[in-house]
């Protein structure tokens, strides 16, 4: 039996039962939030004190989880004993960290007012990933939860979740930036002086690209941040280590389409390289081969039978349509299985769970339970 066949028999049962941190990751639009919420509901059902941290849930799903856009603290999920849900607000989380860790009240104010900080905290690529890590660290530190399920931000590339914190801390640490920020230079005179005394081609080029005022804002920002870099770095490292522990689990989520499957396989490799504990792959919304003879006889036979139907008769015309639908479902199912096999060829995803396409949107607790049952069902 190939590793992939073996993986197909796995389920997330023991993951939901035993892991402390479960990270759902994958390309955008593949059902990460739904998967995270379903796993959390199942963990809570098994009596574990659980929280699901989501980034950007669909409106109806958010409502079902008892979340509103204006609220970013943990809230109990209505109708689910032992489950809290929480939404991540990147900017507010960043502000809170500054408030908590800045060395003086004056500095807090200077940072929060800095134009560069405002842009950074709202839009710098990687900030959201970093803030998700910070929140995870917080939730872990409180010791209130046995199981923390986290949904990663919809990044262009699923790898950003692992790389971004390092990129952000590197940036904040500003190895090369701080060469230019000797403490003696007061903000405001920095750029002019740097260019004026000929700090070199580097600064001339940089200020040509950005304009000189940006450098002033930057100088002020970095000076205010002095003394906070280490904390950022330490926490990012703690979370990274926490995620490496066997008590953590990464669930790679994908759709059955080649682009997101490609990202999923890429991410699997990357997790292995970083020594991260991978629980497996969840492929959402898979079209199932139709039952009975429809999945067994040659498709041409189904088409032939459809062609014998009398199109002047409503019932026979309806039956012909059903046969066409069966042919389509079979073609889609075959194409998807091919794509899944191709994407994970030569890899060992550990567990591979295919969640069938539901006939409607999954947006309430009942729908999430339906998904959860499929995630933990044993299929040996």
């Amino acid at each position, binding site marked *: 039996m190939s590793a992939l066949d073996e993986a197909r028999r796995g389920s997330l049962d023991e993951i939901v039962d035993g892991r402390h941190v479960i990270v759902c990751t994958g390309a955008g639009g593949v059902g990460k939030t739904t998967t995270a919420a379903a796993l959390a509901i199942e963990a809570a059902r098994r009596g574990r004190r659980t929280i699901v941290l989501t980034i950007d849930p669909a409106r109806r799903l958010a409502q079902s989880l008892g979340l509103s856009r204006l609220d970013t603290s943990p809230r109990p999920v209505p109708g689910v004993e032992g489950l809290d849900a929480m939404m991540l607000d990147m900017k507010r989380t960043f502000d809170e960290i500054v408030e908590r860790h800045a060395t003086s009240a004056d500095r807090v104010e200077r940072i929060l007012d800095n134009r560069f900080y405002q842009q950074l905290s709202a839009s710098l690529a990687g900030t959201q990933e970093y803030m998700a890590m910070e929140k995870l660290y917080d939730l872990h530190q409180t010791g209130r939860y046995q199981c923390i399920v986290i949904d990663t931000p919809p990044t262009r590339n699923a790898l950003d979740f692992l790389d971004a914190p390092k990129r952000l801390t590197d940036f904040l640490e500003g190895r090369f930036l701080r060469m230019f920020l000797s403490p003696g230079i007061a903000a405001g005179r920095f750029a002019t002086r740097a260019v004026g005394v000929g700090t070199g081609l580097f600064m001339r080029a940089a200020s040509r690209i950005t304009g000189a005022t940006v450098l002033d804002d930057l100088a002020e920002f970095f000076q205010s941040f002095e003394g906070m870099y280490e904390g950022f770095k330490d926490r990012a490292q703690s979370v990274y280590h926490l995620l490496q522990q066997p008590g953590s689990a990464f669930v790679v989520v994908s759709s059955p389409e*080649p682009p997101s499957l490609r990202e999923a396989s890429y991410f699997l490799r990357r997790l292995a390289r970083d020594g991260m504990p991978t629980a497996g792959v969840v492929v959402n919304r898979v079209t199932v081969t139709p039952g009975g003879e429809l999945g067994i006889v040659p498709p041409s036979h189904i088409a032939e039978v459809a062609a014998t139907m009398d199109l002047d008769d409503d019932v026979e015309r309806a039956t012909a349509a059903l046969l066409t639908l069966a042919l389509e479902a079979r073609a889609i199912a075959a194409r998807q299985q091919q794509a899944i096999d191709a994407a994970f060829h030569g890899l060992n995803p550990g567990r591979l769970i295919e969640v069938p396409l539901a006939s409607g949107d999954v947006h309430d607790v009942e729908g999430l339970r339906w998904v959860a049952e499929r995630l933990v069902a044993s299929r040996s």
Partner: protein
Amino acid sequence: MDSRALLDPRVLLVTGKGGVGKSTAAAALAIASVRTGRRTCLVEVEGRQTMRALFNTEQWDFDEREVRQDLFGLSIDPEASLAEYLAMFYGAKRLSRLVVNSTAVEFATTAAPGIKDVLLIGKVKEMERRRDADGRFVYDMIVVDAPPTGRILNFLRAPEATTELVRVGPIREQAQSLIDLLLDPNRLRIQLVTLLEEMPVAETADSADALAELGVQLNPIIANRALRPRMDQAAAKVFESGMTAETVQSVLGGSGLEDARTATALRELGERHLRRLELQDEMRAALRAQTQVPLFELPYLATRSFAENEVSLLADVISAAVSGDEVPVGTDPEAQR
């Protein structure tokens, strides 16, 4: 605005939520644009090389290459645009090379993240304005596979944000001309792509509002992978009112498909199909209730995946609409081949 105007502007920025088939739609629009006689450039901005796979060509890069007759392909990355930009403004090949290869680029673009986007839009504007020796525009149409809706607002606001953040310097000067391009509906429009499903529809409606507020002009929204009814109304009515699995079984008597499990599976397929059509209708209504923008639908192709063949079939649908030919609902482009 009706669907005949789909290809009227000279620049289309194609955006949508992740997973809705934004790149497929961009490629189909570009092919339709060529088929309706426009010299076209298809631009990829996130360096994912999706189009390379689709058209089965070499890597796409910063050189515009003719990938099919009258269809050019280009992949813009910020570093290359920055080098070209510096060379253009300073004639400083030496400086630009040095800068691009140094951490200064990373520094500048991290310090003011919008600069990357300004450079991308700047490149598109340059192509839009470019004329040949006879004074004619080189491209009739530029289709940009733009960032997804989650980032499109920041992308479009970048020139303005830049004018606020960067108070002097050449980028500041260029930013104003980009704002002019973005706000001119004859030159540029935003092409939203969605699926007729809850999440994408909600995000599309939100984006449509925010984009309108920004003052950019929207093309009709493309609803990708729209399921076509497989049953006409009379057949659907019969199916819903009492056509049981047993009925199906007796109709299929002697065909080799007359067992009970097959009949039940067929019955379920029909129910699911009708439920999904109903859901699509709800989504159309939700979009209509939330935005004034008309909808243009591309059919779901059951048997194909993201490949030139599929995109070509979708381009047929767009070309027909642009030429004012009727595209009757329920048309199955796969069946026509």
